[in-house]
C-alpha cells in the first residue's frame, strides 16, 4: 500500500478547515471590525473549553474518563484567585491554580488507577467536593492586582484577522493555543504519544510490550490536571479578575462534549471549541444587533442546537479509546 501524504489522509478536515478559513476572511474583508470582535469573542469563550478538552484528551487517551474537569477547573479558579489575592501576585496565582489542578489530577489518578475506584465516581466526587469547598472557604471582598494583561505577539499579531484574534490576548489564551498544537504533536508523533495511545486503547498490549501502564496513566492523569487548573486560572485571572461561586458554569461538562465532538484529537477539539465559541458569539451578536425579531431564548440556543445538528449531519460514529473507563489490573 503506498504511503499517503498528510493531505490525502485528512482530506475532509483539511477541506473543511480551508472552507472555514476562506469564509472567515470573506467576512473579515466585508466587515473587519465585527469579524475580529466576533472571532475574538469565540476564542475568548473557547479557551477554557479547549484547555478542559485537553485534560479530557490526555485522560481518555490514557484510558481514564475525567468527568471532574468542571470541579478541577473551579478549584483552579478558586485557588488561583485566592493565592493571588493573598500574595498580590497574579503569577503566583497562576502557579497555585496549576498546582491545585495537579492535586485534583493526582486524586483522580490515584483513586482510579491505583485504587481502582470507578472513574465516573471519582469525577463526580471531584465535582461535588469542588463546589462544596469553593463555596465553603469563599471569602468576599478579596481582590487581586490587575488580572493577566493582554499583549501582542511580535509579527504574528500583525496578521490580519488571525493576529488580533489569537495573538493579542493574555498569556493563558496563547498558552492554550500552543498547548493544543504541542499536544497534538506529542500525541501523534512522539514516543510518549504512542505509548499513551496504546495504554488507552489496549493496555495489556502495552503492558506486554514492556510499558508500565499504571505509571504512565498516573503520570498523564495527574499532569493533565495542570491544564484544568490553568483553565480555572484563566477564568478568575485572565478572562475576569474575580472569583464567583460556581463560576466554571458547566464549562467542564461542555469541554467533555467538545472532546467527544473533537473525536479525542487535540486539533479537532480546538476546531470544535472554536465552532461552539463562534456560535455563542453569533447568538449574542444577533441579540445585541436586534436584526431578527425572535425571543433571545431561541437565539441563545444556537450553539447547542447547531452542535447537535452538525454532529447528526456528520454521522459516522467516532470511537472512544478502547480501554476508557476500565481499570488495568495486572495478570487479569
Amino acid at each position, binding site marked *: 500500500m503506498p504511503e499517503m501524504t498528510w493531505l490525502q489522509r485528512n482530506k475532509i478536515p483539511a477541506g473543511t478547515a480551508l472552507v472555514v478559513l476562506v469564509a472567515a476572511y470573506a467576512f473579515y474583508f466585508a466587515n473587519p471590525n465585527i469579524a475580529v470582535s466576533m472571532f475574538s469573542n469565540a476564542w475568548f469563550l473557547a479557551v477554557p473549553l479547549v484547555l478542559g478538552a485537553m485534560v479530557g484528551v490526555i485522560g481518555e487517551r490514557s484510558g481514564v474518563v475525567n468527568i471532574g474537569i468542571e470541579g478541577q477547573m473551579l478549584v483552579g479558579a478558586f485557588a488561583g484567585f485566592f493565592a493571588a489575592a493573598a500574595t498580590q501576585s497574579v503569577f503566583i496565582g497562576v502557579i497555585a491554580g496549576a498546582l491545585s489542578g495537579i492535586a485534583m489530577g493526582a486524586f483522580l489518578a490515584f483513586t482510579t488507577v491505583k485504587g481502582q475506584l470507578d472513574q465516573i465516581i471519582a469525577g463526580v466526587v471531584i465535582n461535588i467536593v469542588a463546589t462544596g469547598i469553593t463555596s465553603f472557604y469563599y471569602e*468576599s*471582598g478579596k481582590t*487581586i492586582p490587575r488580572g493577566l494583561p493582554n499583549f501582542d505577539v511580535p509579527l504574528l499579531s500583525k496578521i490580519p484577522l488571525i493576529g488580533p484574534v489569537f495573538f493579542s490576548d493574555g498569556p493563558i489564551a496563547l498558552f492554550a493555543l500552543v498547548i493544543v498544537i504541542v499536544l497534538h504533536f506529542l500525541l501523534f508523533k512522539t514516543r510518549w504519544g504512542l505509548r499513551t495511545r496504546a495504554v488507552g486503547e489496549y493496555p495489556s498490549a502495552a503492558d506486554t510490550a514492556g510499558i508500565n501502564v499504571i505509571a504512565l496513566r498516573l503520570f498523564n492523569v495527574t499532569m493533565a490536571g495542570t491544564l484544568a487548573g490553568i483553565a480555572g486560572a484563566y477564568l478568575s485571572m485572565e478572562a*475576569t479578575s474575580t472569583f*464567583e461561586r460556581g463560576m466554571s458554569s458547566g464549562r467542564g461538562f461542555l469541554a467533555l462534549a467538545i472532546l467527544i465532538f473533537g473525536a479525542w484529537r487535540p486539533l479537532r477539539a480546538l476546531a470544535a471549541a472554536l465552532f461552539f465559541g463562534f456560535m455563542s458569539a453569533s447568538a*449574542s451578536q444577533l*441579540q445585541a444587533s436586534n436584526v431578527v425579531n425572535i425571543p433571545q431564548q431561541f437565539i441563545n440556543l444556537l450553539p447547542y442546537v447547531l452542535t447537535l445538528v452538525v454532529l447528526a449531519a456528520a454521522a459516522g460514529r467516532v470511537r472512544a479509546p478502547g480501554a476508557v473507563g476500565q481499570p488495568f489490573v495486572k495478570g487479569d
Partner: protein
Amino acid sequence: DNSSDGSSAAPKDCSSTEVFCIGLVTDTGSVDDKNFNQAAWEGVKALEGDGVQTKYIETKDAKDYANNLKQFTDQKYDAIVTVGFLMAEATVTAAKSNPNIKFIGVDQFQDDKATAPNVTGLIFPEANAGYAAGYMAGLMTKTNKLGIVLGAEIPPTQAYAKGYEQGSKASNPKSSVAKVYHPAGDNAFSDSPWGAGEAKKMLAQGADFIFGAGGGTGNGALGEAAKTSGAGSSIFCIGVDVDQWDTVPEAHPCLVTSAEKKLTKGTTDLLTQAKDGSIKGGNFVGDTGLAPFHDFDSKIPADVKTKVADIVKQLEDGTLKVA
C-alpha cells in the same frame, strides 16, 4: 463569618417582648454575594444593637424556602426578611399562618388579591435607576454606542435595560444600545467570564459605556471594561443594584457610577418601622438613583452632573415617568 453575629453567644427567646428578633432568608445565593442578598443582610445588621437579635439562613434549594422560613417562624421571630421574587409565594403563605410576625419581601410585588396584611413588599423602580444611568451614558458617550450586559431575562433586568435604553435616547438620540441577556440557567447570574467576553465584544465594536446588570455576570463585564485600554478616559462602566465601587474593586478604573436600588436603606427603614409597629402591608417603594461618582467626581463634566442630578430628581418626585 457567622450568621448569628453578636447574638449567638446567648440567644434569647424570641417570643419574649424584650428582644426583637430579625431573621433573613436568602435567595439561592449567599449573604456575601456582593449583591442584593448582601445588601439586604447589611440592612438587617444595621439594626443590630440593644435588644435586637439577627440571624440568616442561606437557601440552597428553591424548594426549601418554606422550610427555611419555618425555622424562624417556629422560633417566633418578630420580623423576617425574604430576599428575591422567587420567594414571594412562600412568604405570603408563611405570613398567613403567622399573623403576628412581620414579613418583608425584597423584590416581591404584593398583589392586593394574594397578599397578607403582615407582608410588606420592598420594591424598586429599577427602570428609574436604569434611566438615570442611561441618561448619563448618553451625555458622555463619544462613540454613541452603549452596551448592556445582563443576567437572565427577568423583570428587574428587563426594567434596568428598558430604563437605560430610554434614558440614553432621551439625552442622546443618536446613541444606540447593544443589549445581551445571558442564556437562562442556574449560572445566569454568576457567569463572569461570559459577561467579560460580551463586554469585550461590545467594546471592540465601538461601545464606550458598559452597563453591567446581572450579578456576577455583569461584574465580569465591568471588570473587562476596566481592563481595556482607555478605561477611565474614553471607556466607562456602570454598576448595578448597589454601589459597586464598594463591591467590585476591580472595576474602579472605569466605574463612573452604579444604577442603585437602595436595598440596604429600604430594608433598614422597613425593619425600623416593624420594630416600632408602624409598618404597613402592601408595597413599599424603595429609593433608586445613582451611586456616588467616587474617583470620577472630578472627571465628570459639571454640566453632565447637573443634568443628571436634575433627571434623578425628576424621577424621584415622579415628574418623569419611564414608560
